[in-house]
C-alpha cells in the first residue's frame, strides 16, 4: 500500500521526481511549517489566504491542464460551497457539529451542481471551445442572482443572504470543541494544500489520470479504446468543482464572510491566470504560481497600487507570448528538471 502510494506520487504526471527535488520540497514544507512561529498572526493569516486558493488552482490544473477542458467559471463552485457553508453552519450556530455539516453540505452541493452542469455539457458533447463561455455565463448568473438577495425576504432559516453586502458572521470551522482560527487555521490550510497536492499527484499517476491525459490528447481515440469519455470528463469536472468548493470553504473560515463579487468576472479570471502562468500541465507549477501571484496581488494592492490586476493581466499576456506552457514548467524544463525524459527518449532512439 505504502509502496504503491510512493510509486504513484513519484510517477511522471508532474515535474519533480529527483531526490534533489524532494529535498527542495521538504525544505519548502519546513519553511511553511515554521513560518507562523516567526511572524505575527496577521502575516500568517495573509499567507493562509494565499494557501487557501491553492485547491482551486489545482482543480483548474486538473480540468484544464490534464483534461483539456477550460472552465472560466469555477469560482461559481467556490461561491456555492461558501454560501452553503454559511447557511448550514449559521443555522446550526451553537452546535459543534454545525461547521462540519456545513463543510459536508458545501462540498456535496458543489458536487451535485457540477454533476448536473457537467452532465448537460459533456453528455451533449458540447464542443470544447464553448465550455468556457457556458461556465462563465453560469458564474455571472450566480453573481447576479446573489446580488439581488438583499432584504429580509432572502433568508434561509435564520441566515440572511445579504445581497451585494454578502453573508457575514459565518462561524469558524471546528472539530469537536477545537476551533480553527489564527495559527491553527493557517496549519489547516497548509495541511489541505499538501494533502490535495499529493492526492492529485497520485490520481494523475494512476490509470484514471492516464486516461484523463489521453482524453486531452485525443478524445475519440480514447473512446475507441473502450472508455466513456463523457463520464470521465464529467467526473473530472466534479472533482475540480469540489476543489474550488474546498477553497470557498476555507475562504469563509478566513474572513467569516462571503460576497457575490467572489463569484464575479474578476475572480473568475484569477484561477485561469494562476494556472496559465505557472503551467497548466503541472500541479506543482500551479501551487507555486497560485501562492506567488496571490502574494504579488496582495503586496501591490496593500502598497496602494491601483493597477494590481492590470499587472497580473499583463503577466498573463507575457506568459502566453513567451512562456506558452507556463513560466514554472518552462523554467523546470530549462534547468533540466526533466532529464529523464530526454535520457529515455535518447535511449529509445538508439
Amino acid at each position: 500500500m505504502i509502496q504503491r502510494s510512493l510509486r504513484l506520487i513519484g510517477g511522471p504526471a508532474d515535474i519533480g521526481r529527483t531526490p534533489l527535488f524532494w529535498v527542495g520540497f521538504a525544505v519548502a514544507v519546513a519553511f511553511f511549517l515554521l513560518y507562523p512561529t516567526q511572524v505575527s498572526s496577521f502575516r500568517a493569516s495573509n499567507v493562509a489566504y494565499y494557501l487557501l486558493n491553492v485547491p482551486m488552482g489545482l482543480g483548474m490544473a486538473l480540468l484544464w491542464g490534464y483534461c483539456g477542458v477550460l472552465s472560466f467559471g469555477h469560482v461559481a463552485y467556490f461561491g456555492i460551497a461558501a454560501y452553503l457553508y454559511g447557511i448550514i453552519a449559521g443555522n446550526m450556530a451553537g452546535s459543534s457539529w454545525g461547521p462540519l455539516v456545513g463543510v459536508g453540505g458545501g462540498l456535496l452541493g458543489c458536487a451535485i451542481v457540477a454533476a448536473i452542469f457537467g452532465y448537460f455539457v459533456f453528455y451533449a458533447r458540447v464542443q470544447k471551445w464553448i465550455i468556457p463561455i457556458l461556465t462563465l455565463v453560469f458564474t455571472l448568473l450566480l453573481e447576479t442572482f446573489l446580488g439581488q438577495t438583499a432584504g429580509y425576504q432572502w433568508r434561509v432559516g435564520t441566515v440572511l443572504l445579504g445581497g451585494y453586502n454578502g453573508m457575514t458572521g459565518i462561524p469558524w470551522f471546528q472539530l469537536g470543541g477545537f476551533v480553527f482560527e489564527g495559527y491553527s487555521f493557517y496549519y489547516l490550510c497548509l495541511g489541505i494544500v499538501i494533502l490535495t497536492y499529493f492526492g492529485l499527484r497520485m490520481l494523475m499517476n494512476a490509470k484514471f489520470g492516464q486516461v484523463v491525459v489521453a482524453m486531452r490528447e485525443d478524445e475519440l481515440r480514447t473512446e475507441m479504446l473502450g472508455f466513456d469519455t463523457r463520464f470521465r470528463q464529467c467526473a473530472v469536472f466534479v472533482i475540480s468543482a469540489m476543489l474550488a468548493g474546498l477553497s470557498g470553504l476555507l475562504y469563509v473560515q478566513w474572513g467569516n464572510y462571503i460576497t457575490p463579487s467572489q463569484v464575479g468576472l474578476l475572480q473568475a479570471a484569477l484561477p485561469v491566470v494562476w494556472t496559465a502562468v505557472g503551467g497548466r500541465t503541472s500541479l506543482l507549477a500551479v501551487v507555486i504560481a497560485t501562492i506567488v501571484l496571490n502574494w504579488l496581488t496582495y503586496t501591490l494592492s496593500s502598497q496602494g497600487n491601483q493597477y494590481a490586476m492590470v499587472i497580473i493581466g499583463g503577466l498573463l499576456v507575457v506568459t502566453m507570448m513567451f512562456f506558452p506552457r507556463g513560466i514554472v514548467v518552462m523554467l523546470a524544463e530549462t534547468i533540466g528538471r526533466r532529464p529523464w525524459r530526454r535520457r529515455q527518449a535518447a535511449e529509445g532512439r538508439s
Partner: protein
Amino acid sequence: MSGAVLLETKALSKRFGGVVAANNIDFTVTEGELRCLIGPNGAGKSTLFSMLCGIQKADSGEIYAFGKRVTHRQAFHRVRRGLGLTFQSNRAFHDLSVAENLAIPRKPLHARSHQKAAERYRYALDAFGLDPADQTRSGELSHDQLQWLEIAMVLAGFPDLVMLDEPTAGMATEETNRTAEVLKALQDSGLTLLVVEHDMAFVRLVADSVTVLHQGTIFAEGTVEDITTSEAVRSIYLGKA
C-alpha cells in the same frame, strides 16, 4: 467461412444531403476470417467503417456485434464488447510515451479468452519491435512504428474483432509486408480482422475474402482471386461502371 457471425449489418443506410453514402448494406464478418473492404474513392468505405464502430449514426438499418444489436450503442460500448479499431490517420497519443500508450487501453468486459488475447498482444509487440516499458515519446517514432504502435494499442484491449482502416498507408514495401505477416499470424491465432484498404498488393497478401463497395452499395464479394479477376470490379476502379 463457417464460424459465428461477429459483425453484421442489415439494410444499413446513410445519406449526406443528396449523397447516398451507404445504401441498404447487408454485410457480415465471420469469426476467424480476414476480410478486406475495398472500393474506389467515394465508394462509402469510410462511412460504413464509421457506422460499424459507432462514430456515425446510421439513418436506417441495424448493426449487430457479437450477436447483440448495437445500432444505437455508443462507440465505447462496442469496444467493450470486443471490437478494436485503428483510424485512417494515425491516432496514437503522440505526446505520451510508448509505455503510456500501451498502458491506457481498457480490457473488454466480455473477452472470450484473455489468455489467447494476451498472447496475441505479446506476439504483436515482439513482431513490431515494441517495448511496453519504452519511455520514448511516441511522437518521436517513425510513421511505420506509429502505425504498429496503434495496432498494438488496439490488441492491448484484448479485442475479438479488429477493424483496421488502411493500416499500411504511407508504408514502404518491406514494412507493408511485415504488417501483412503479422496480421496473417494474428488471424491464424484466431483473431478476426476487417481491413479497409486501397493497396491491392496488400489485399492479395492478407485477405481471405473481399467485399467491394461502389456508390454506397456492395458491388461484389468473394475470394481475392474472384475479385481481382473480375472485369466488373476492374471497370469500377477504372471508372467504367
